[in-house]
């Protein structure tokens, strides 16, 4: 009984962020005349739900791919590049075969292959992960110019029958698969458990008998699956041009905020839920900003920056807050 009560409490705690976001944006938009068309508040429309779901799904997929590596102690810079290259390959194949399902399969396979290549170079080269993945990012980005004649993929998303995974309800399929892959890996597989051990005490883990190289490979396979799924959502929603100069890291970074926020929010429940909720909250904010015409351009960047800093600064103080709370509790007890 106590346990179920706990879960409900956790869920409510986790849900506070998007609800708060919704209320804040509602108040702001309601107070701004720009947000009314014919006396109707555009923030409160069916479009809000649709956009938030579509964009959250995209965010969740990418965020999970980033988080899976981070959780295992590696910061993988190349995730964005793998995703873009996968998206271009899968999109072109999907266009050729006229089948989104084939595209999905190709995306997952390509994602796995690229991730394995990254893992291979990492293991063989014994390079620090950031430097290694910067190199792989440059390589994958350069390959975006060499596949499909450097054209990227433009019309996959714009054809209704190929872009089913970019819209409701199709977008839910890759998202659910990505979440499933993440949960399966982290909470059920031996590799996930080993990864957890390695990330907490790498040397001890290796000494105890974990084959680190094998573990890295398996982790990358799962990352590859999630990257593939993220790629199919991405290519179903965007036109994908070839990239260069580590621009893909920018694409990846634009999804990284929910990762950090998610892990913090997830303290109240678990990381997957946290990331999902953070994604929803962020998208509500974005939609509200769009209603205010602040969704793009300079102000959006500045708001985003302040938001990131503020959130980070807040979450970094958790130990101070906890210490403060503990002190108060103690004081209350003794009193």
């Amino acid at each position, binding site marked *: 009984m106590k346990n179920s009560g706990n879960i409900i409490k956790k869920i409510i705690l986790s849900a506070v962020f998007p609800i708060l976001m919704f209320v804040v944006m509602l108040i702001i938009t309601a107070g701004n005349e720009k947000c009314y068309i014919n006396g109707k508040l555009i923030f409160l429309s069916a479009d809000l739900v649709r956009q938030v779901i579509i964009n959250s799904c995209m965010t969740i997929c990418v965020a999970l791919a980033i988080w899976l590596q981070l959780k295992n102690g590696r910061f993988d810079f190349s995730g964005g590049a793998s995703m873009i290259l996968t998206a271009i390959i899968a999109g072109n194949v999907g266009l050729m075969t006229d089948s989104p399902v084939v595209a999905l399969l190709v995306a997952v396979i390509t994602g796995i292959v690229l991730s394995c290549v990254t893992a291979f170079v990492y*293991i063989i080269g014994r390079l*620090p992960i950031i430097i290694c993945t910067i190199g792989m990012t440059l390589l994958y980005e350069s390959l975006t110019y060499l596949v499909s004649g450097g054209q990227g993929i433009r019309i996959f998303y714009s054809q209704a029958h190929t872009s089913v995974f970019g819209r409701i309800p199709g977008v839910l399929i890759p998202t659910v698969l990505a979440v499933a892959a993440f949960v399966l890996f982290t909470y059920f597989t031996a590799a996930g458990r080993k990864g957890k051990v390695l990330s907490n005490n790498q040397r001890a883990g290796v000494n105890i008998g974990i084959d680190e190289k094998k573990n890295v490979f398996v982790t990358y396979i799962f990352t590859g699956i999630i990257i593939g799924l993220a790629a199919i959502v991405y290519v179903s929603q965007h036109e994908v041009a070839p990239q260069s100069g580590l621009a893909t890291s920018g694409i990846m970074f634009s999804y990284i905020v929910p990762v950090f926020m998610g892990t913090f929010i997830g303290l109240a429940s678990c990381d997957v839920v946290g990331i999902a909720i953070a994604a929803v909250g962020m998208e509500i904010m974005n939609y509200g900003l769009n209603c205010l015409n602040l969704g793009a351009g300079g102000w959006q960047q*500045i708001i985003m920056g302040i938001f990131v800093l503020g959130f980070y600064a807040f979450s970094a103080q958790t130990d101070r807050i906890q210490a403060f709370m503990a002190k108060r509790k103690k004081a209350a007890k003794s009193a």
Partner: protein
Amino acid sequence: MREKEKVTPADFLKQHVYDIAAYAGLIVTFILFLIFSGSRLSYNMATVLQSASAYSIIALGAVFVYSMGYMDVSVGQQVGVYAILMIMITNAMGGTAAGVAAGFLVILALALLCGAFNGAVAVWLKLPSIVTSLFLMFFFTGAQLLLMESTGTNSISIQAVIKPADRNMYNVMLVLAIVIVAVIVTYFFKFTKLGKYTRGIGANEVTTAQCGVNTTKWKVIAYMAFGVCVAVGSFIMLTRTGSAGKGTGSGYAMDIMICLILGGMPLSGGMKSKVSSALVGTFTYVLLTNDLTTMGVDLNMINFVKAVIFIAIIMVTCRKKDGVLPR
């Protein structure tokens, strides 16, 4: 008690393999440069000098930050905003020399402020300094867009003469600028507390702090030193075109990181950090890009070739021999 060991050539190679690799990269790109520049060699030398000037000055400053094991992703946007501000201030003051000076002082002050922010706020709020620089990146991206929107054009030009009319004079000026900055940075990095402490912080922050070093203070100073170089670099970059736009400076942060890696700078910082990595890396990078263009490499292939070379070099310079995979 002291036994001087004999240094064999093999040992020498082993100890200096990173340096050798970095310099080999520079030499190879330079030879290719000589071969493919053909009849316009002297012109092309000026080209390389000009495109490397801003990079090398900023990279030299970045040595302080990278030697602590930190990085700054906001540099590109800072350069952009500084260039635009410099133009706006100069033009507002009627394009006079005083305007140029005032503009430079303003961006210098801003750069120092950003340095202090990166150094101090990160410590106060217990944030990794990448987060504060991420914030600055967002902030300056926004500021750059807003500033350019306020001008109503996609490119604004400075109304003062900030570049000698004579091309040779200009090139000499650039060489002088690079040399002066390099000498100053070398001095501070090798012969003063600043460099010793930043390297110490990079190698082991706890130890350095326990040696009585106020790490917060020196972090701030290191970031500020970097800020000075960013301001100077922005000005040098501005002298090239005399104009700036929304994309000015974009990609600088990543390019400088690549330059430093190519020059053999360990991203984790520490005692192996060298000033020379900045110059070697920058010129390798600029020469490589130049070579690929003069050689007429297919546009779609250029990035691929660069990536392969980058991976080959890091395979040599960054390989770790340890029981566990490096993170």
